[in-house]
């Protein structure tokens, strides 16, 4: 238990300086806790107070912050997630990434609210954390090992009732692949924006935690009323009650195809044969490769896919995935409908520590470039890089993680790959982050979400338009509304900020939004977090993320889709659709106005004052 003035927090930030080899605990300012809550909000504030946003992302001046929230450690459903924030080596703007699994809950139980890691070690190290103790240890013996090997070796230190939970990088992070992940429980990942490369640049292989501290709940009745409401609603909605468990996220594949949003061949079109789509659907996955569903910490939804597949050598392999994004970006986006090959490539990416989304987007880009003669047959070591090449998809995972042959170019991500050969227009990225598996020409709202997401084209930070257009019931937002998209996407982005700042899963949003969370967080902290107050926090975090990006050098010109989406239409509901530059401009200006940013997309001094966003304390 803690004597901190706000329940639900320990009031302690663990700061590790890898350059100096020092570990210390700093106090968490209560005003910062109340203004930024936890998770994404708190981590963003601590990062902004620690680094210069203009710093070199792979150097010692970058830092990463992982923050917990007041709900983590309580019985709130799904509240075991962590949020990591850093300057991204892929995008050059804020890197912001979230992971489930169990590490977040174990870290909180070690008695800290956040972890800040600065500097860089001279040789490989790991950080070992337990209640009241944290130390930097040599990790030369772990360097070069896969994610799974590292996880198994470090988790072996588990004790009864006190499991050791591991975050680590694989060879991809060590080799500074710009879209390397930090893995959690072996197969959950901080996936997007290249956190693994930031760790690799710091020579940090792993962070292990063992915790058993308890969290106090200040107002048990209020907490319980929110909890009861949340659990009731999760049981009421078929998607959270059973569909996620039955079908996993890949249950979306057929639906997204039905609404002409399923990308094909590096976003050249959204045209697939139904029988091909069926081969990569969630239903087919459930009937063929799925062994069982699994869950993250305290999750009643259970979307994880624990699968098995025949290896290329005929031997059975077991692992996790594929999720919707992986299935489509490694699959149809590359012209591939071979679920077994996609699953094996997914396993390899998990072992070596690559983001399956950016990897799929980069391979699709490379395939289009190969078709145009921009990557020659002599460069691929005999691998056929044509669209549909499942063997290439599998073989290139290892080459990319180890930067071998053409893999060294792929390791830079789609934008640098294409721009390096004079065709940046072939990279389907926003702010150099590869697009998720929803074609923005099929929804203006999704287009604007990609354009304005703080981390580049991310459906989780940018807002998820499919829900708005098709699952909103009476509140549905037409998918081609220029007028309604800016407010709709702001609201969706804000709900995401809240969930990320509370350490809870996005999928709870299919059952309920802010109200049960407001009651639970008020109950835990004993402070009144009304929905309106939570909205203020959401707006504060959005403004601070934008301020970070402005100071990192991003401008309004970066809030734009690749040319393909403005110039080449796809057919949706019988009509040709694209997102013209004028339409992008109009939505962007309206969005800035909704956010209270100036015409160049910068938070105004008045807005920063009104939201109590102080200057950096670095």
């Amino acid at each position, binding site marked *: 238990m803690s004597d901190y003035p706000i329940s639900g927090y320990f009031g302690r930030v663990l700061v590790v300086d890898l350059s100096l080899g020092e570990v210390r605990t700093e106090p968490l300012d209560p005003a910062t806790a109340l203004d930024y809550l936890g998770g994404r909000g708190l981590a963003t504030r601590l990062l902004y107070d620690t680094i210069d946003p203009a710093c070199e992302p792979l150097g010692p001046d970058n830092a990463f912050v992982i923050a917990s929230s007041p709900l983590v450690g309580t019985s709130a459903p799904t509240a075991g997630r962590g949020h990591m924030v850093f300057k991204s080596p892929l995008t050059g703007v804020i890197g912001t990434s979230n992971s489930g699994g169990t590490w977040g809950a174990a870290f909180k139980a070690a008695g800290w609210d956040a972890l800040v890691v600065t500097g860089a070690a001279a040789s490989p190290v790991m950080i070992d954390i337990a209640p009241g103790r944290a130390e930097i240890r040599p990790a030369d013996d772990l360097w070069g090992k896969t994610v799974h090997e590292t996880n198994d070796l470090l988790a072996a230190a588990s004790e009864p009732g006190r499991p050791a939970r591991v975050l680590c990088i694989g060879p991809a992070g060590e080799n500074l692949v710009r879209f390397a992940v930090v893995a959690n429980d072996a197969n959950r990942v901080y996936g997007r924006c290249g956190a693994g490369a930031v760790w690799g640049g710091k020579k940090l292989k792993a962070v292990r935690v063992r915790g058993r501290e308890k969290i106090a709940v200040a107002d048990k009745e209020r907490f319980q009323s929110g909890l009861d409401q949340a659990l009731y609603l999760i049981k009421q*909605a*078929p*998607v*959270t009650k*059973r*569909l*996620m468990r*039955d*079908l*996993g*996220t*890949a*249950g*979306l594949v*057929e*639906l997204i195809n*039905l*609404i*002409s949003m399923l990308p094909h061949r590096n976003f050249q079109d959204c045209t697939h044969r139904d029988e091909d789509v069926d081969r990569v659907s969630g*239903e087919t996955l459930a009937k063929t490769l799925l062994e069982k569903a699994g869950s993250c910490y305290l999750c009643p939804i259970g*979307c994880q896919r624990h699968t098995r597949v025949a290896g290329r050598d005929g031997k059975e392999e077991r692992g996790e995935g594929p*999720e*919707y*994004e992986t299935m489509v970006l490694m699959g149809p986006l590359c012209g591939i409908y071979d679920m077994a090959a996609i699953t094996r490539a997914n396993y390899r990416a998990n072992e070596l520590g690559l983001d399956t989304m950016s990897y799929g987007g980069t391979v699709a880009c490379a395939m289009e470039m190969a078709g145009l003669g921009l990557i020659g047959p002599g460069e691929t070591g005999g691998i056929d890089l044509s669209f549909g090449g499942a063997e290439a998809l599998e073989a290139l995972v290892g080459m990319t993680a180890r930067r071998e042959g053409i893999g060294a170019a792929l390791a830079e991500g789609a934008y640098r790959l294409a721009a390096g050969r004079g065709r940046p227009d072939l990279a389907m990225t926003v702010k150099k982050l590869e697009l*998720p*598996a*929803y074609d923005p020409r099929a929804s203006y709202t999704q287009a604007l979400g990609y354009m304005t997401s703080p981390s580049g084209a991310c*459906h*989780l930070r940018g807002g*998820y338009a*499919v*829900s708005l*257009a*098709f*699952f909103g*019931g009476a509140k*549905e937002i037409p998918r081609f509304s220029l007028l309604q998209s800016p407010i709709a996407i702001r609201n969706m982005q804000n709900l995401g900020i809240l969930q990320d700042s509370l350490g809870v899963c*996005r*999928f709870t949003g*299919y059952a309920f939004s802010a109200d049960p969370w407001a009651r639970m967080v008020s109950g835990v902290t004993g402070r009144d977090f009304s929905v309106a107050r939570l909205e203020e926090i959401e707006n504060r975090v959005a403004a601070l993320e934008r301020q970070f990006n402005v100071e990192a050098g991003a401008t309004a010109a970066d809030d734009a889709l690749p040319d393909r989406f403005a110039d080449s239409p796809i057919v*949706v*509901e*019988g009509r040709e659709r694209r997102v013209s530059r004028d339409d992008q401009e109009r939505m962007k200006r309206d969005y800035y106005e909704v956010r209270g940013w100036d015409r160049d997309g910068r938070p105004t001094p008045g807005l920063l004052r009104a939201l109590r966003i102080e200057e950096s304390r670095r």
Partner: protein
Amino acid sequence: MTLKIKFFAYFRDLFGARERDLVLESAATVGGVLEVLTDTPERRAEVFAGAELKPHVVLLLNGAPPGRGLSTPLADGDTLAIFPLLGGG
């Protein structure tokens, strides 16, 4: 007129098909077709709450939400998809 009905997720088990062609002798609305399709108490209970669609049932007419809900008129050759609210990403 002839309509194509597509079923997704648990509606495939409920209706025993991935898709079926439905031939109607006269003009129909989305709601009218659902009345025809929900020919058992179990099917009806999964689709309707009283006269309204259950909140988690999603319909797409030729890839778009039906403009007038259950009273949207149908034309020969239309495709109506029925699925539960799905999540992912």
